[in-house]
């Protein structure tokens, strides 16, 4: 089969020029062990374009000040940039209002916020919370902690051998006892894109709120929270070509309004006396303390960067790459792809017979290739597939067909040594 990946393709009347895109990312010129870096660990974190780096530096170079509390010029400029980043995020996921966009440290903190605040207030003994087998530890542990505290039960939707949620099993699990559903939109270990629309619809027919872990989805799939009708959604800036240490919690305003604050401190109050405190309005109620101001501005810039290329164009291109890579590795002896769902983001997890993923990782590193090896923070999922770990190549908007070829040559060498 001949699968085409054009370096400069015309999609939706816009040119996807991967060479030009690569030149936006200074790090891609790096050499590793004397070889050209081939960065295929985008599901762990993505590289940052100069546009994002510059915007972040600009804040520190030109208008560094604290926000929401100064009358001086720098503080006003910083506040304006910070708040306009919030509007960029709001428009990016099509939220109803900017008060539904809360800045957090990342996906992990967003999920913990909901489990702590919404969960502690609403989950009672005997209640049930539903997640799936393919969750990242960050969408397992907060719910486990909540369940332990409240004597509630965690129910897990099983998956099939392709790595897809078995919807009929979800239908069987959900009941009057279910009080919350939290599932991953796209799996970091398998690449599976879950039928979130259907999952939400079913939960809503029982009046159960649904949270989506969109950490791996935001940079591949156009998200419209109103159309999806999800109640909460979480993602991280660093997987979207933005900085680390910043992320988003989206929540419907009627839920957020009824939730107690997650942390207490500055910015989240409107009035404090030693007798009592009145909380600030949304979204500030959930943003105690000085946030990662540069991070928020950088995240806004990253979204602008991605939107300028167009998420549909990126998805189209990455899908071609995934197909090309899937096809290329299929010829390798003893290679088994873990995660063969019909709908996938550009994640290629695999297991080489008789070669442990750690050995694969060390060998590829010497070819300049960065991939992730291990359990990918999804140990229960590894158990489901009866393997301790996988090797995972994950593709971003700047990867090329030639880089896939370098990967395949590296894997071929490994098979020669261990064969």
């Amino acid at each position, binding site marked *: 089969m001949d699968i085409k990946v054009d370096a400069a393709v015309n999609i939706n009347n816009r040119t996807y020029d991967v060479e030009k895109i690569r030149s936006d990312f200074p790090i891609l010129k790096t050499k590793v*062990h004397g070889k050209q870096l081939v960065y295929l660990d985008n599901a762990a974190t993505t590289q940052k374009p100069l546009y994002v780096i510059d915007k972040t530096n600009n804040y520190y170079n030109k208008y560094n000040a604290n926000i929401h509390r100064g009358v001086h010029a720098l503080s006003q400029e910083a506040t304006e940039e910070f708040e306009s980043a919030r509007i960029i995020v709001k428009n990016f996921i099509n939220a109803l209002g900017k008060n539904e966009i809360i800045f957090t440290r990342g996906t992990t903190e967003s999920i913990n916020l909901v489990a702590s605040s919404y969960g502690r207030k609403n989950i009672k003994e005997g209640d049930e919370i539903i997640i799936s087998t393919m969750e990242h530890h960050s969408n397992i542990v907060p719910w486990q902690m909540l369940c332990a505290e409240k004597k509630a039960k965690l129910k897990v939707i099983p998956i099939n051998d392709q790595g897809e949620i078995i919807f009929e099993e979800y239908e069987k699990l959900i009941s009057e006892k279910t009080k919350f559903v939290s599932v991953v939109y796209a799996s970091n270990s398998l690449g599976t894109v879950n039928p979130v629309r259907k999952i939400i619809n079913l939960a809503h027919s029982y009046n159960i709120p649904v949270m989506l872990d969109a950490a791996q989805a935001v940079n591949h799939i156009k998200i419209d929270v109103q159309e999806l009708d999800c109640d909460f959604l979480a993602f991280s800036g660093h997987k979207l070509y933005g900085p680390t240490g910043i992320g988003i919690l989206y929540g419907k305003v009627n839920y957020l309004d009824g939730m107690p604050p997650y942390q207490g401190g500055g910015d989240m109050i409107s009035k404090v006396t030693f007798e009592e405190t009145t909380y600030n309005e949304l979204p500030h109620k959930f943003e105690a303390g000085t946030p990662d101001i540069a991070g928020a501005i950088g995240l806004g810039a990253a979204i602008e960067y991605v939107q300028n290329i167009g998420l549909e164009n990126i998805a189209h291109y990455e899908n071609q790459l995934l197909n090309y890579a899937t096809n290329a590795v299929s010829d390798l002896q003893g290679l088994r792809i873990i995660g063969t769902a019909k709908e996938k983001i550009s994640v290629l997890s695999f297991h080489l017979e*008789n*070669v*442990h*993923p*750690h*050995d694969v990782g*060390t*060998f590829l590193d*010497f070819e300049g290739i960065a991939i992730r*090896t*291990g*359990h990918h923070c999804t*140990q229960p999922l*590894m158990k489901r597939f009866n393997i*301790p*770990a996988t090797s995972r190549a994950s593709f971003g908007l700047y990867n090329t067909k030639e880089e896939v070829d370098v990967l395949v040559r590296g894997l071929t*060498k490994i098979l020669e*040594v*261990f064969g």
Partner: protein
Amino acid sequence: MEQELRELYQEVILDHNKSPRNFRAIEHPTNFAEGYNPLCGDNINIFLIVNDEGIIEDISFQGSGCAISKASASLMTSILKGKTIEEAENVFEKFHELVTDKLGDNPNIDDLGKLAVFAGVREFPARVKCASLAWHTMINALHNKKEKAVTE
């Protein structure tokens, strides 16, 4: 293959990875421990039969792991059979110094015999845990500690 890689994956290591020695369970061990590497999810079980004189009569392992950890466990079991507990502890210390670079650039690897093949691990700090998991687990088994050995 690059020089550093070749030093890490020596023929002896590849061979022990492919056909590990003493890769079996012992039905009634006098000493036993489980080891676990949280970084990669690998696990190893070490079985020993230590007689009344404190001599290791039999030693074996089971589990899953990378080439480095499997070869390390395999070589360890081959070397420790017939040794006393004290001798085993001494070899462990030397081995640990070897892979963590404490022996310096010119390690006195003569006393280490075959274990010298693990000298290359020093260049790969991320892989030191792989090489030492079996050893930590063996020490735990000798002390018959109930908790799991965790390479952290």
